[in-house]
């Protein structure tokens, strides 16, 4: 009997000890954080002095952290920087320690935007992997008027230096993770393409005298295109433009500017990039232009317009997609120094109030030989819009 009592006592003491130890072990626990998180959360019992909660990472307790926020048995601690996948995280309070939790590589797309770092990271680059759009605008050629004597297709009819333009463009992010700051190791490689109808010819059939009716609607007196009748405007330009250009290239964005954990929504970030672009230009030349085209070396071939450039592109915010670049290449459009062209391009993209399917742009391009030959300075304004707007929506017949 004595033996049994002793045994029961031992078992009881052991049970109390285990329960107490378990309670202690459960006093602090941490929710598994994801790579890049700067907020830690978890459960803390009310016996723990929440203000004493300290985070250690990979054995280091020198972790920068804000004072813990505790509510209803849960804590939240904002850290001075992002956690990295594989980090071992422990939260302790006095002698109590949570079990070590390993930071996971979570699927960024599957995660709900979190407070802190994850959200901020997304603000660094809000561009989707595939961007496809169409644009409608006006090109201004008046700054290059003095050089037009060597500008191909000069005999094309049209007394004005402004022309409506239209085109499609797309960009696809082939590599790179936009949720992480851009570095040479986390660089982004984009493939992109663009078509451009109308800009190099001086006429798309909207002369000042007796223009077709669509012209009035097309360019709002040749300056700023409106958002109305887009399919009709696009179709008119495509039908009548006497020049067509297409560009394709690779853009390697290798270094983020202002992409830090300190960024707040609204802070503009940018990527530095290098790009290589191949361009071809086709012009419906008048008969008197044929010798000039032949003299340019292009013959009846499509005219080459290639480029390598370095630039900076905004990656977030209301002006996402704006860029400035400088490069070197060839433009066979010019008779002199066609293979030694310095090219500068700046584009400002901006939101248009009241619409979520279109944005505005203003652009200037310079194509110069920095010598005595022809130069081109052109500017454009227009709208960039959801390509689906080219097709009028089909309304369901109203029920009788």
């Amino acid at each position, binding site marked *: 009997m004595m033996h049994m009592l002793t045994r029961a006592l031992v078992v009881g003491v052991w049970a109390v000890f285990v329960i107490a130890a378990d309670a202690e072990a459960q006093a602090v626990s941490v929710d598994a954080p994801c790579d890049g998180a700067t907020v830690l959360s978890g459960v803390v019992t009310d016996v723990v002095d929440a203000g004493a909660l300290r985070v250690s990472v*990979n054995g*280091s307790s020198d*972790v920068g952290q804000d004072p813990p926020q505790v509510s209803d048995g849960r804590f939240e601690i904002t850290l*001075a920087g992002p956690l990295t996948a*594989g980090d071992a995280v422990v939260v302790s309070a006095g002698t109590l320690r949570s079990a070590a939790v390993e930071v996971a590589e979570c699927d960024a797309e599957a995660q709900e935007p979190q407070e802190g770092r994850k959200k901020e990271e997304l603000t660094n680059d809000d561009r989707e992997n595939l961007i496809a759009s169409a644009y409608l605008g006006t090109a201004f050629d008046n700054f290059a008027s003095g050089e037009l004597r060597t500008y191909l297709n000069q005999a094309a009819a049209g007394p004005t230096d402004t022309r409506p333009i239209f085109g499609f463009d797309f960009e696809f992010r082939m590599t790179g993770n936009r949720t992480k700051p851009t570095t040479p190791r986390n*660089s982004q490689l984009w493939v992109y393409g663009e078509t451009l109808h109308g800009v190099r010819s001086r006429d798309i059939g909207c002369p000042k005298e007796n223009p077709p009716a669509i012209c009035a609607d097309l360019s709002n007196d040749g300056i700023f295109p409106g958002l109305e009748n887009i399919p009709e405007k696009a179709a008119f330009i495509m039908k009548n433009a006497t020049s067509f250009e297409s560009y394709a290239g690779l853009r390697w964005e*290798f270094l983020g500017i202002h992409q830090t954990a300190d960024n707040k929504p609204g802070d503009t970030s940018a990527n530095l990039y290098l790009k290589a672009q191949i361009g*071809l230009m086709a012009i419906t030349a008048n008969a008197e232009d044929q010798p000039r085209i032949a003299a340019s070396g292009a013959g009846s071939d499509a005219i080459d317009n290639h480029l390598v450039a370095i630039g900076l592109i905004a990656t977030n915010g209301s002006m996402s997609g704006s860029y400035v670049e400088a490069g070197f290449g060839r433009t066979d459009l010019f008779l002199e120094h066609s293979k030694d062209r310095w090219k500068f391009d700046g584009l400002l993209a901006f939101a248009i109030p009241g619409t979520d399917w279109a944005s505005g742009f203003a652009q200037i391009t310079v194509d110069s030989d920095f010598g005595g030959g022809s130069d081109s300075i052109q500017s454009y304004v227009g709208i960039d819009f959801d390509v689906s707007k080219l097709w009028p929506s089909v309304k369901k017949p109203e029920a009788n």
Partner: protein
Amino acid sequence: MATRDIIKLIGGVLKAVSTQAAATPKLEVPYRSIDFDGGCPYDDLFPEARHLPPPGAHTLGVAISGGGTRSAAAALGQLRGLHANGWLGRVRYLSAVSGGAWAATPFTFTGTDLAIFLGQPRPPGEILDDATLQATGGEACLGHSIADSGLTGPGLRAALPQIVNKVVDRIGEENEALGAALKTALEALGPDDDQSEIYSSIIGRLFIDPHVADGGRRLFTWTDATRAEARRLNPQLADADFVVVPAGRPFLILGGTIIEHRPLLTYPNLIPVEYTPYYVTVRQRFGRNLGGILVSSYGYDTSEVTPRNESTAAVQTRSAKKRFTLHDVVGSTGAAPQLFFYVSDKIPDKIRGIPAGVFPEFDHWTVRDGEAHGLPTPVPHGDGGFLDNLGMMPLLARGVTRIIAFINSKGPYKENHDLMALFGLSDRHDTNGDKRHNLVFADGRRRYDELIADFDARVGRGTTVMHCGKSYQVVGNDRYGIRPYGDVTVCWIYNHPVEGWIGDLADTELARRLPVTRDGELVKQRDAAGQEIDFDPRFERFPWYNTFGEAKPRVMDLKPEQVNLLAHLSCWTVTNDASRTELLAQIGDAL
């Protein structure tokens, strides 16, 4: 047609890059994923134990502290003294840090006769004049290397190719393709066999190259047997590709520090790493990507890891020429200025990496559950003295029970935080390192006071500043992978003026003009009339030479006579009758 030309150009670049990538050497390397917390067996943590002679009742380890060329010069004398006493053959482990490693590493790998390499002991009665002190022997002598340790002039000129290579390396780390292309161009312009980091290259050329042929190019391993194993795994390598340790040398362990520096941390996470001829290891796990790994030394600083099984992995070096060599090891263990660039608040965050990048950075990888992990970029590997400047931790981790610890510091022992930290009496963490995690001895306050009291008494008597503490209880220390054990005797020998030795110098004029200590400070001696006697300007801070700038305008150099005088004193501290007798009495059971 321009389009065709461009396509041709792109094709050519891609071909060049792919060819270069294919040429990057691959190695098969033994490794072991270890879990110190998980009760990993001793032989897995310390595989050299299988190959070393069975230990007796006690094992003897020698620890040589850091301290730049001062410590290298002192270590020269200490190794010379141990050799003269006939004890070197009994030393199982030689642990060294920083400047101590600059002496211990060539000592371990040199094929030169040790009597020549280390030089001969010269008791104070034989130090007659300057001529005695200014001879450093030939280039085969370690003293010559230390006295010739020029960071200026020849050192920098020699490093210029490495500076260019470093820039290209950095580009390559960021973008492999671009880096590979630039590497190809560099190699075409002028090949340079030494692809070490800039600092490693400088240190390696000074302390390794004179004593180890092609030490900046060849891989290194421990013995003929480990080399044979490496060659079995990598038939493309030849014997000549490896430096091995001549028979009879202690097993060398060099302390380094991995610097985990991130915006998350207010102070870098300093992680101890051990370099040995056989392997490189971080015993404790620091998350998934750092530590808990032991890699054959020739396979460290590699990436693209593919574990073949639990003991072998295929890895890739960063370039055809970037191998992990003795240059890298002595560069890392002695990279004292490195931490400053990460910690100092005087340096803007955005440019920290530029000066810090001059110092060693290695690829570090781990294997967990059969999968390789690592950080995406090379990790700074700095001075071992940032954590354990006395080199004690590797010995305690291996359960060594008899230790001679040479503390080649400058300044008074009462202010030595490296020493205090071992007893849990320092929480210093600054640009010099982090001492907060270094408690290893139980009953710290009492044992430390006992040590200091003995030092005080020795200074008062004018004898070697030495204290042999017996029956130390070692407490467990996770950061260093140390398990608790007891019955440890440590004989601490402090780099300190010894008035008895000074008084015995045959060069009496020099003896009068050397500093002595009062209240822990170096002071001038006084003549019979009580007047201060001017220092000999060369020895104004003897034996506490500055780590940098002692012989201005040179950066690290010591003058030959400075090296020799310190080496003679340090040698004497273990060879003089009283010290030798005491050491035999205290640790003789391991000799």
